[in-house]
């Protein structure tokens, strides 16, 4: 995948099995969010393809792809709530677009999803600007779950939240998996999230820092295997140590 001639992802081959929770980790700019957007078809790969349930999403016309996207839920980094709509209309958005349900049925689903993420019915008439960061994320999750997705994609779900709210979101990811047989891909650089929710961890590395011919997927395994990984770069990320990175950045800048 490349943008204006700059390659971001190269030869990334990833199989995610039904029901699995995969955490994709890696430093900023390594292409984690791009990977998520490729999965759901918001971006089309320069070369390669994305398969979902045996269907090639990358070759689909936009109209068919729009239908397939309803099988996914996507929690955006900044929640991406529609700021001109109320919380109720945000959560009900996908249901209204899909059609075929009465307003009473939609209202019930909205209230149920809000309850699942720990929000009361009193927030339904609020606009996103009136909500805290944690509440926005939870409304975003309720909106993503409203269509009963088969796969959930989380883009840095805990970024910018306090430690308690971070753990609330982690619990909600676990709760979502417990309540429904959903396949999850979580993009994060929060190691607590990784260790708490992941069945499997995939670590991407920025292309520019790889030696030629090296695979961009530095690590693919369980959280336990991640802890014992011998690769220095993986250990450095897991332990959150800059080491000689500052010097490298200074050299690159000069």
């Amino acid at each position, binding site marked *: 995948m490349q943008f204006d001639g700059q390659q971001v992802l190269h030869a990334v081959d990833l199989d995610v099995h039904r029901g699995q929770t995969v955490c994709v980790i890696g430093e900023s700019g390594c292409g984690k969010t791009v990977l998520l957007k490729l999965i759901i078809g918001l971006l089309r790969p320069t070369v390669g393809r994305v398969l979902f349930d045996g269907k090639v999403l990358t070759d689909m016309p936009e109209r068919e792809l729009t239908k397939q*996207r*309803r099988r996914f839920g996507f929690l*955006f980094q900044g929640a*991406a709530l529609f*700021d001109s709509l109320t919380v109720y209309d945000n959560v009900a*958005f996908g249901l209204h*677009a*899909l059609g075929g349900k009465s307003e009473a049925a939609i209202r019930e689903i909205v209230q149920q999803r809000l309850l699942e993420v720990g929000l009361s019915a009193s927030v339904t008439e609020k606009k996103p600007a009136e909500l805290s960061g944690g509440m926005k994320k939870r409304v975003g999750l309720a*909106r993503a779950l409203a*269509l009963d997705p088969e796969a959930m994609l989380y883009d840095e779900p805990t970024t910018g939240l306090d430690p308690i709210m971070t753990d609330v979101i982690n619990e909600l990811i676990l709760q979502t998996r417990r309540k429904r047989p959903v396949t999850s891909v979580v993009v994060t650089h929060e190691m607590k999230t990784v260790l708490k929710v992941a069945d499997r961890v995939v670590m991407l590395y920025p292309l520019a820092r790889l030696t030629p011919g090296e695979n961009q997927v530095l690590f693919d395994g369980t959280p336990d295997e991640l802890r014992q990984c011998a690769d220095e770069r993986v250990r450095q990320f897991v332990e959150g140590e800059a080491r000689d990175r500052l010097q490298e950045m200074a050299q690159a800048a000069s």
Partner: protein
Amino acid sequence: MATVSKYATGSAIDLPRRIADSFAEFGDLSAFGGEVIALTFRPPARGALVPALYTIGVRSIPVVAVTGLFIGMVLAVQSYAQFRALGVVTQLGSIINMSVVRELGPVLAATMLAGRVGGAMAAELATMRITEQIDAMACLGTNPVHRLAAPRFIACVLLIPLLTIVANFMGVMGGALVSTQVYNIDAHFYWQNSHGFVTLWDVTVGLIKPMFFGGAIAIIGCHRGFHSGSGAEGVGRAATRAFVSSFIAILALDFFLALFLNNLYAVLWPVG
């Protein structure tokens, strides 16, 4: 880190690239316009059309009315001296009304709307784009162009002609107000001499053109919003470019439509 425009070097080598980029952008705009027009034939998304009609139509009435009023008043002030020199001040209404209804009303009202509606549209959609709201819409199984651009296009095409009627009415009234109250032209002769100069064809031309202006404002505003750069600078650039491009499009369309409609008139009602 300071950011530098890709054309900042200003070398001659950039010129072909700039021309190629402009053609590519025009092609992209045309394709987007085609998609928007095609999507207007599908029923509008729930709750999308009425807010667009309200924002674009109802909320633009004051600015369009004030614009129209001043167009008429300025025309009266500027034309009065010439008409007085010729001793035909009671004919002032004919030139004011003709200019307002046929040309100045539609073009200046559209220009005001390009700023108010086109700029706002681009800024709003650009903000939605950079905060990933447009991506979120796509993820919820909605076509963002159908949901966001098509209702705005419909609202502009339907309501800008109606807003032009408001501008025209206010322009005619403004001209009459200055002529009769400031220059003391007899109101009876002013209106009597104005009568008959503006034909049904003039009114029709003055209402056909705004439909095209409205379509152009909506397509350009939405396109700039959907394809904006990132950050506050990207939003600002999207709004500015939407206005500038819409303004140029209005003038170009005005020229070609005038040419076409005049030829059509000559074919429908040949002289002699």
